[in-house]
């Protein structure tokens, strides 16, 4: 199968959907001629014109709100939020307006829109350009939240999100934009709410989101050399969360580790771990462990920044300890 980058996958997904549905419009800063600073959207304005691929002023709340209204009245906007950190600016429009409109209107209004943004540290971008804020939006009923780990998921999830009748927030990992993965030429969709088992295993379940899927896979490689068989699960969307697939694996292996790039406390890893711990309780041989970004603003200094995110080595060590039963937390 051909391999394309995550960036190309996003571009293709949008182009295909825009060809199919003339009501799709793209709004964001520098999305047209510039094709975003990451050059993800290059070429779209040439094909679809500046009426559908629209450069906005630097007004995240404004153009997100405009997208909400447009979505309520017949368009299907895709909003580009250049850095996930800027979600903080659009929280009211996203969480008080877009997320609640369908419910508050008793099902009579709907807001089919996509917010594409990104996440991830270790780009030396410091505290306001490195956050992984998916837990915040996943907490809000009415929003769906997708976290593609590879180009394959990026394309399939985005196409599905564009067709969804609800506001969907997609977090792409900044460091993965140039990563290639096999992506079929033919059209495909990936349902929101279906996890995928990236690697089968029997001793320990590693649930990783976004870039942490690769960390989990790398950890699994390390463990395989030591005779520990890790199963790696990518939830792909955290809202809805495919609890069944995750629980089935945890019940099978009796050990689970959750790896996520959001901050640890009150982050996505807490929800996933809490569900496993509750619903696979009688199967577990060891406590569910969490690996996540440290609870610190992401520092600029490379030496420090690299300490803040989970690594394959750390995850592997967690798995080893789970195997050895060395997780006795003294009072």
């Amino acid at each position, binding site marked *: 199968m051909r391999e394309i980058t995550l960036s190309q996958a996003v571009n293709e997904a949008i182009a295909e959907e825009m060809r199919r549905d003339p009501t799709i419009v793209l709004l964001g800063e520098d999305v047209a001629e510039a094709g975003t600073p990451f050059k993800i959207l290059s070429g779209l304005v040439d094909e679809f014109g500046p009426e559908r691929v629209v450069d906005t002023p630097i007004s995240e709340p404004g153009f997100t709100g405009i997208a909400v209204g447009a979505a309520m009245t017949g368009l299907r906007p895709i909003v580009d939020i250049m850095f996930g950190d800027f979600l903080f600016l659009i929280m009211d429009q996203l969480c008080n307006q877009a997320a609640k409109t369908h419910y508050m209107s008793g099902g009579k209004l709907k807001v089919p829109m996509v917010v594409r943004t990104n996440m991830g540290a270790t780009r030396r971008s410091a505290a306001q350009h490195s956050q992984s804020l998916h837990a915040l939006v996943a907490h809000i009923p009415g929003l*769906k939240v997708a976290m593609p780990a590879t180009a394959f998921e990026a394309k399939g999830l985005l196409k599905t999100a564009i067709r969804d009748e609800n506001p969907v927030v997609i977090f792409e990992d900044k460091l993965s934009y140039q990563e290639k993965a096999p992506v079929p030429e033919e059209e495909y969709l990936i349902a929101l709410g279906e996890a995928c088992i990236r690697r089968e295993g029997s001793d320990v379940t590693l649930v990783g989101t976004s870039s942490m899927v690769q960390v989990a896979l790398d950890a699994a490689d390390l463990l395989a050399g030591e005779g520990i068989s890790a199963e790696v699960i990518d939830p792909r969307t955290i809202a809805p969360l495919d609890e069944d697939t995750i629980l089935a694996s945890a019940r099978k292996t009796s050990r689970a580790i959750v790896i996520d790039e959001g901050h640890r406390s009150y982050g996505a890893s807490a929800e996933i771990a809490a569900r496993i711990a509750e619903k696979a309780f009688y199967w577990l041989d060891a406590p569910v462990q969490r690996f996540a970004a440290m609870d610190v603003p992401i520092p600029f200094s490379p030496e420090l920044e690299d300490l803040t995110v989970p690594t394959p080595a750390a995850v592997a060590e967690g798995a080893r300890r789970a195997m050895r039963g060395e997780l006795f937390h003294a009072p």
Partner: protein
Amino acid sequence: MEGNRERNADAYLRMYRQMLRIRVFEENAHQLYLSAKMPGLTHLYIGQEAVAVGICDALEPTDRITSTHRGHGHCVAKGAGFRQMFCELLGKSEGFCRGKGGSMHIADQENGNLGANAIVGGSAGIATGAALSAKRLGSGGVAVCFFGDGALGQGLLYECMNIASLWKLPVIYACENNHYGEYTHVSEMASGDLLDRARAFGIETATVDGQNVLEVNEAAEGFVSRARAGQGPFFLLLDTYRFHGHHVGDISREYYRAKEEEELWKSERDPVSNFAKWLRGESVASDDELNRIESEVRREAEDAVEYALAAPYPGSEEVDMHVFAEAG
């Protein structure tokens, strides 16, 4: 009060009826609150009727509006029926939002009302987005964004006005200056000249007496037809007043506005009774006709209240319905 002699009596009486319907709707809502039959609080539109009616009469049902926490007037003016409205206020399943929205989120999609909003200024983007849809889809529609003087404090509005102006969107920003946020005078909340805030973005503005429905309507007609012709956006500033408290529980108001001021507006600048006087004076309608309209409206309201009081609440199975819309 000046009228346009060419306009026909039908239109005048239609607007009168709508203003009266708002007034009577609100009186009944107030009663429901006082008799503890309505859950929560509500913000009455009494005193501002000419604004909603003057503007909405200039719109087609397919045109969109966005409304505010003080939203019953906009809802009535845009064409909503009383039964569904009262049902909504009481949390009943036949309400416009199946009782899930209540007073602060009342909407009426079939008549183009995209909903009240409990976030001050929160609908500036929604209205502007509706105008973007109208332009992109070539529907010829316009959108009106209703908001209060207090909402001028919200930065979102300026972001949206800038974009609407850049993209020449068919949206009209209708600022209902009733001189107060909750309990604070507009002069403590807004510096400079209010109209300049739109002009700064190259938006054409007008200011009108919001107590005079014909003046409001004339200005609205002008802006609406020009917006339809692609000359938008526009900004309309309406000088008006809320006769009651900020919400139904706001009883002792002397610390933020004088009784005399309230009395003056009520006695001199009541948009409903002044318009009635004008209609009689211009012989558009006789006392009898106006009385007949009033009793019809009152009957309609009584019926609707009774209906809503007897209507069922949504079943418990509805609590987690409509979180997400289904495909199709």
